[in-house]
Structure formats: C-alpha cells, structure tokens
C-alpha cells in the first residue's frame, strides 16, 4: 500500500507533529477523510465529534507553536469506545436505552486524554453495554472486520479495534470485562491491553460488571499502546477501587527489546481441543521467537481455569443485573409509554422491554436469578470461591515465572451471524481472556501472524502479575520486534487497503 500519514504509528505521528511536518488539524482531517471513505463499510463509529476534535487539535497546534511543552501524544487522534462518558458528546453504550443521552461530565479517562492533548475523533461501536464478543449485539448495527468485511471485528470493543485496523485512528480506548479489549485486538491484528484492575480509573465508564471492568489502551503497536497507557492510567480519588501507586514505566519497558533470562510460562489448560490449528501454529511460532530472543519457556498448570468461564457468567451477569437497574427512563435515556395513563412502574417496564436488546436481557435475567435468595450461595457465592482459586493459581504460577502466555482466543475472526444464535459458543470465545479479569491482573494481546488456513490475524496473549504491567510491555515489545523482522513489515501493513468508494 502507498504509505500515507494515516498508516503511520502513533509514535511516528507524534514525531511528525513535533517536527512541524504536519499539524494536529491536518492529522485530524486526514483521519476524518479516511473515516468518510471507509466507515460506510466498516461502521466502526457511532458518532463523530468533528467540532470538538478540530478545536482540540487547533489548541494543541497553538501550544506547540508557542513552544509549550506538550505530551508526546498531543495532537494524535483517538477513537473512544462509546461506553466512556465525554461531556456533551452522545454516549449510548451501543444501546437504544441511551439514545440521545449526552453526559454532563467527563470520565476520568477522557479528562486524562484531554489533558494530554489527545484528539478524540468520536465514539466507537460496541456490543450493547459491552456484552458480547462480536459487536453483533449493538443496537446500531454490526461493525465489520477490515481484514474481511464478512467477519466480526471482535467484541465488545469491535468498533475500536476495527477503527485501528482500518486506519481510521492510530489509537483507541477499549474496556475489558472478560476480554473485550484483547479479543477484538486478536481478531483484527492490533494490540490491546487490559491493565491491572484499579490502575485506570473506572469513573465515567458505564458499568457492566464493576469488579471486572477495566479500561485500557489499544493501538497498532506495542509502543503506541504503552504511550497511551501512561496517559490514561493513574490514581483517581473518584474511584474507590483505584490503586494509589505511581504509574509504571510502560514506554521504557516497550522499548527494552530484551527478554534474556526472563521466564515465560505457557498455560497448559489454554490449549488443545477447540483451538484452531493455525492459532496453535502461530502461537508456537511466537514461542520460538521468544526462545530465540533468550527467554526461558516453561509449561505451567492452572487447574482452576477450567471453572473460569462458568464463574464469570455468574459474577458478571449478577453485577450487571444491579448496575443496569438504573436505566428506568426516569432521569435520562429513552422513555416509552408515558402517555399520561400509565404509572411510573409501567413506564419503567415498557422502557426496559424496548430499550434493552436480547443479550442484555438474557444476562439481567441470569444475574437476577443468581443473586436470588436461596440461590445466592450456590451461584454467586460459589463463583466468588472459584475466583479466589483462580487468583491462587496465578499467584502460584507467578512465583515460578515472570509472565504467562496463551493464545488470546481459540479461533480467528468468525463470520458475522455464525454464532449469534448460540450464546454458549459465543461465550467460549473468551475462555483464554476471562481468567485475567477474574484475578484482576494485566493482560495484553498482540498479533503473532496470520493463520495459514484463512489468512486472518492470530492473537498472542501475555499475562503479567498485578501492578507489573511493564512486564507484558517488555515481552510484547520484544516479541513484536522479533516477528516483524521475520515478516519484513508489521502485520497491519498487510491488511486490505479497503477500496475507497
């Protein structure tokens, strides 16, 4: 492909901006042009904030011109998952329920992005309230995978991953409750990081499952992801579960390109039956690359992971059933049936009937049941015990190795519609990513090649101990460099150009 500015990495764009070769306004416009050209096919964005983005870009240009010290990412465009509030900008969470809602406040992630001068282009599509693995559950239509428009871009953050793979933005924000950053990254050949729980503020992240949700950085390279990570992370007194500790040096770690002497554990339970052959091939290839780079590779067992999926589908829906109770039409969002003849309770019911999609209703019902008296101990209570066991498995593993690795998901991107009638098949997509959320540790997905059988990207997952997110950047950065030198170019460079219409 002919290399245009939109094909650059965020780090490259940052350098161009710093040297004055391009302005932030030009960069934003180049991306808006790209979005106009291809988003009709991809449908990554639900809302574009041209005015806000160009104003921010102009302000960054003025700061740079005035010689002010700015963040390296100042002026670099970003796509924001529509689950984070941005003052005055529509925030729907992919749900009809919130159609037309413009939040009166910024999420802390957005506050941090604005402070750094990052230019937010718009809000990206997602499975409704982040529940799904394909964006097929969005009330506003499915996002398509730029690698193959008949396939899903992953979910719930499929809009963000597709925007990156389609060169509509060099940076994106996702949120990850059971894999919603990492699985979309895997199936679109991009990089996505779920930071340690509590290291990025959840204030302004519309909650799906409070004890699992975590916002994180997404980009096309490990370094770009690290740069964005440092911008959005940090202690926030508005989030009681936020960890009061300094942000680690992710950029430095991503640039180390050295894993000599590191111990890397391969999780035995996250392989075998049900894993696509090409996924296993590329995963093993990546292990070879790490071995060649000087890492020690060992096999590690995590016996409780077997129960992770079941525990997750009790904990997440339980918390969701409570978190989503507030959508009752009384204060914001849509309101159905308020014709003066109905009680508030009837209007609430009608609104929830119309406002929520099938998957959201399924999970609310599941969670309501699991929390009901008489069932609580058997379901929610047991799930919490499994959670403790999974944490212990990780603790035992991290006593022996520096990081753990696995494929990010068992398969490459599946066809749109292929699993939409089979929720369990859909849920199984997250089998490798879910344990990370249950334990609250960090996880990264980066591309490790294209599966020979379908030519689609395969994701490689790196898991690091809580508050040691630097380790996954160090390993990820090293692996990325090794693989790119063997391929001769980054994986994303071989993505389809997408004919401009």
């Amino acid at each position, binding site marked *: 492909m002919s290399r245009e500015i939109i094909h650059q990495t965020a780090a490259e764009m940052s350098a161009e901006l710093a040297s004055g070769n391009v302005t932030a306004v030009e960069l934003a416009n180049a991306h808006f042009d790209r979005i106009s050209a291809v988003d009709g096919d991809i449908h990554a964005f639900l809302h574009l904030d041209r005015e806000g983005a160009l104003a921010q870009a102009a302000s960054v240009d003025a700061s740079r011109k005035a010689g002010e010290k700015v963040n390296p990412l100042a002026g670099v465009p970003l796509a924001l998952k529509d689950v984070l509030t941005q003052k005055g900008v529509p925030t729907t969470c992919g749900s009809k329920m919130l159609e037309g809602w413009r939040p009166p406040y910024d999420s802390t992630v957005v506050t941090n992005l604005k402070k750094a001068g990052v230019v937010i282009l718009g809000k990206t599509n997602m499975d409704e309230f982040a529940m799904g693995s394909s964006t097929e559950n969005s009330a506003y239509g499915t996002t398509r995978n730029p690698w193959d428009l008949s396939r899903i871009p992953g979910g719930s953050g499929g809009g963000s991953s597709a925007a990156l793979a389609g060169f509509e933005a060099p940076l994106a924000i996702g949120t990850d409750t059971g894999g919603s950053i990492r699985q979309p990254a895997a199936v679109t050949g991009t990089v996505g990081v779920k930071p340690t729980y509590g290291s990025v503020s959840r204030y302004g992240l519309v909650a799906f499952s409070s004890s699992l949700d975590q916002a994180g950085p997404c980009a096309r390279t490990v370094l770009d992801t690290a740069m964005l990570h440092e911008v959005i992370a940090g202690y926030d007194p508005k989030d009681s*579960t936020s960890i009061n500790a300094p942000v680690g040096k992710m950029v430095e770690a991503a640039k180390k390109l050295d894993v000599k002497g590191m111990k890397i554990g391969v999780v035995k339970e996250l392989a075998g039956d049900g894993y696509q052959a090409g996924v296993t091939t590329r995963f093993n290839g990546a292990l070879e690359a790490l071995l060649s780079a000087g890492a020690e590779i060992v096999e590690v067992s995590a016996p409780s992971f077997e129960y992770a999926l079941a525990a997750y589908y009790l904990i997440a829906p339980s918390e969701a059933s409570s978190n989503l109770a507030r959508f009752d039409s009384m204060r914001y969002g849509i309101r159905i049936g308020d014709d003066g003849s109905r009680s508030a309770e009837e209007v609430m019911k009608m609104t929830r009937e119309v406002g929520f999609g099938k998957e959201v209703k399924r999970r609310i019902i599941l969670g309501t049941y699991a929390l009901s008296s008489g069932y609580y101990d058997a379901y929610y209570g047991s799930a919490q015990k499994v959670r403790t066991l999974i944490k212990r498995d990780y603790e035992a593993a991290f006593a022996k190795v520096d990081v753990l690795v696995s494929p990010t998901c068992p398969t490459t991107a599946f066809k749109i519609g292929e699993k939409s009638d089979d929720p369990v098949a859909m849920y199984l997509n997250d089998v490798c990513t879910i344990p990370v959320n249950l334990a609250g540790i960090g996880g990264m997905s980066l591309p490790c090649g294209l599966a020979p059988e379908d030519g689609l990207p395969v994701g490689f997952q790196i898991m690091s101990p809580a508050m040691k997110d630097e380790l996954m950047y160090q390993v990820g950065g090293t692996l990325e460099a090794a693989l790119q030198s063997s391929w001769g170019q980054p994986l994303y460079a071989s993505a389809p150009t997408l004919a401009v219409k």
Partner: protein
Amino acid sequence: MALNYDQALEKYEPTLGLEVHVELNTNSKMFCGCATEFGASPNTQTCPVCLGLPGSLPVVNAKAIESSIRIGLALNCSITPFSRFARKNYFYPDMPKNFQTSQYDEPICVNGYLDVTIDTDEGPKVYRVDIERVHMEEDTGKSLHVGGATGRIHGAEHSLLDYNRAGIPLVEIVTRIIPGTDKYAPEVARAYVAELRDILRSLGVSDVKMEQGSLRCDANLSISPRNSGTLGTRSETKNVNSLRSVERAVRGEIIRQANRLESGERIIQETRHFQEESGETRSGRSKETAEDYRYFPEPDLLPIVADPAWVEELRVALPVKPSIRRKKLQEAWGVPDKEMAAMINAELLDTVEETVALGAEPTKARSWWLGEVSRLANEKSVEPTSLIQPSEIAEIIALIAAGELTDKLARQVVEGVINGEGNPSMVIEKRGLKVVSDDSSLMVAIEAAIASQPETAEKVRSGNIPAAGALIGAVMKATGGQADAAKVRELLLKHLGQA
C-alpha cells in the same frame, strides 16, 4: 363492641421492636461531595454520583463512618473490625440507581444496648433495650405527587422527583424484640426514642429533628393471646414524626390489631402509615410476599476496616451519657424530681441548661421556659425554642433581678421578642417598658410636678406629708406608670426636705 386499650391488653400481649433512621449532619452526602442542607430548591444539591448517572462511582464519606462508630460506641455496641457495604436491589422512581447502597450481613456496629426508665404503677422501672445492629446507608430522593385529591401516588396526575435528599447519610439503629414491655409498650417505645435522640444530640452527629425527618422511627408491633407462647404477625408503622406520635402509634396499633383478631380477621404483614390527626395507622405496602432484595457486596467500594486504636480514641472522647448528665444537672440545680421530669418531658432540658449557663437562676429559667414561653408556643403550635433564644430569656431574667423589669413588664418583653420586634433591649426601648428607677430621669418628672403644683409642694415642705400624694400621682402619670411608686415617694420627700 370495640375493645379499648385496657381491654385489648387484658387479652393480648404486645411484642415491640424499633428501627430508627438517623440522618447524619455531615456537610456532604454519603458517597459524593454534594451539600446536605435541608430545604434547598429541588435538585440543586445533586451531581452525577447521587443522581446515579451512568458511569458515576461512590466514594465513602469518612466523617459518616466516624459518626456511625461513635453512635455504636454510645450504644454499647461492638465495632466490627471489618464491615462492608452491600447493594439492596429494588425499583423505585426516587431511588436513582434502583439499588440502595446499604449494609447487610456485615454492619459496622453490633450487639449493643440502651437502658431507658419509665414511670410505672410501681414506680420508675428500667428497661434494657438490646440493639441488634447499627448500620450505614444512603437516603432516597423524595417524590411529590401532584394533582388528585390525596397527594398520594394513587390518583395523582403526575409526580415530581427531588433528589436533594438522595445520598444523604443515614444510620439505621435496629433493636431486638424488647421483652416484657406489656402494657407499657407505648411508653417504652417513646422513652427509647427520646433517650436515643438525647444520645445522638449529645454526640452532635445529627439534627435529630423528627418533624423534619432527620430522625425517623419505624415501630414493629405484633400481639399474641396472653400466655400463648406464640408470636403474632407484625406490622411496621412508619411516618411517626414526634415522640408523642411514637407512643400514640404503638398504642393505636395494639388496639387495631386486637380488634381485628377479635372480629376474626387476621393481621396482614404490611407497612402502615401513622396518621397524625386521628392517631390511627393506615395500610401501606404489603409485605406478605417477602421482597427479595438480592443483596450482594457493593463492588464499587472497599470494605471498611476500623483501626482499633482509632475506635479506642473515639470511645475515650465520647461525651457524658445524657442520663448521667441529667443526674448531675438535677443535683447542681437542686430541683425536685417532678420539675426535672417536667423539663425532660417538655424537651426543654437543654434549653434550660443553656439559659442557666448564661447566668440565669435555674428555677427562674425553668419557670419561664415551661410557663410563659411554653404557653405561647402551645397557642401557636410550635416549639418553644423556635420563638425565643435562651440568651434572650437569660437577659430578661437578669433585668428582673436588677429590678429593671417587673414580671408583668417582662411578659410584655417576651411577647415583643416573639412578635419579631427585636431582642429584649430593643423591645424595651421601642415599647418604653423599662421600670423607671433611674434617679435622674425620675427627678426630671418630680421637678416638673413641683413646678406645675407649687402650692402643693409648699404644703409638703411645711410638713403636710399626705399632700405629697398628688405630686406622686403626677409623676406616675408622667412616667406612664412605669416608675416604682415607693422610689418616687422617697425621692420627692427627700427633695422637699422631708426625709
């Protein structure tokens, strides 16, 4: 024929338990920084957190935790080393998140007690009320039902929601069943709430104003046939807005339940609302089918770990218990039991104490507050303390003691202050009420009287003392009757060389 209270008690025994909700007087709400001032314009004290906007998160008010621990300590509770918030899930329009952040199986204080004394036929008797738990939670918003005849939700044309109250910190204090109250259940209930209120006030943790809802009492009551050894179905009476109402509500519920059972009906497990006018309760929400609140630990908040050393510091710094304080005051003032009881019952003990602290003599302070001020307050159906300040009563008492006001004039001063004519000295000034005892101003009037009746003055000078009456009369008239007649006579005779 309907049973009266005594007849009801002959056949049935009551079982009583009380739940008291206290609004803490913290400056900010339980989980956000919004102000908590009472009476602000609707929805002006709100933010994304207390409106439950998508994405918002709670942060615990540390002061509220401190207040809750102090309440627990004052009620002889154990402070749990590890407690947690939980979500109580149910739908209601005035509840922004459709769950209330509360405490469930891990409350902050447990297993306390409070002793209360009531007058019985056999003299004063102490009842020990066991406290099961003290826990924290957030208040809900308020619904205002507009249109329709009743102001209630049914039949209203529409409803307005005010979220100023949403998220105000509440502490709920739950008793166990109070054993052996029998026919004194209404008095025990009242005495418990009164004693609790005094304790909360002495701690300074709440405004404890029942009429404003900063202290709310729910009375759980059931009755069972005497000596049956069974427990009846209970009702939960809400909307009890004064101490007097607590007593009336319990009494009314005993009579209602007894008469229902007498007529062969069963008691329905339900919420009932106390009606101030009739003294009866009205049926509210049924609790026949146990509501499932699907409690689970609040994932947005960390558990509360109370540092034992800090708890100990709070314990040491607790104020003197109101019962002990009352005893000390009684000794210091030397007032008989009956007068002391009258002050406590009238809820004027603090006010009298404050007045005494400002220099007033205890019996005088008591008689002004319980007498004239209470009488006027009754006429206006308001609290005595809303009419006049302790400092003003103390000032008036001091003026009487100095001879500058007579009791009769003092009553006019009180009336003036209550009418909003200003503080006592302003009222005295404006109404010209001061006893004219100032020699120089009296002398002016005396000289004027002498000048206008020279012959009479001459008669007095020459020894005709009774003739002075006409001159004294003239002085009294000139001073509007406010001069002390004896003083006028003394000064006049002295001036005319006859003293």
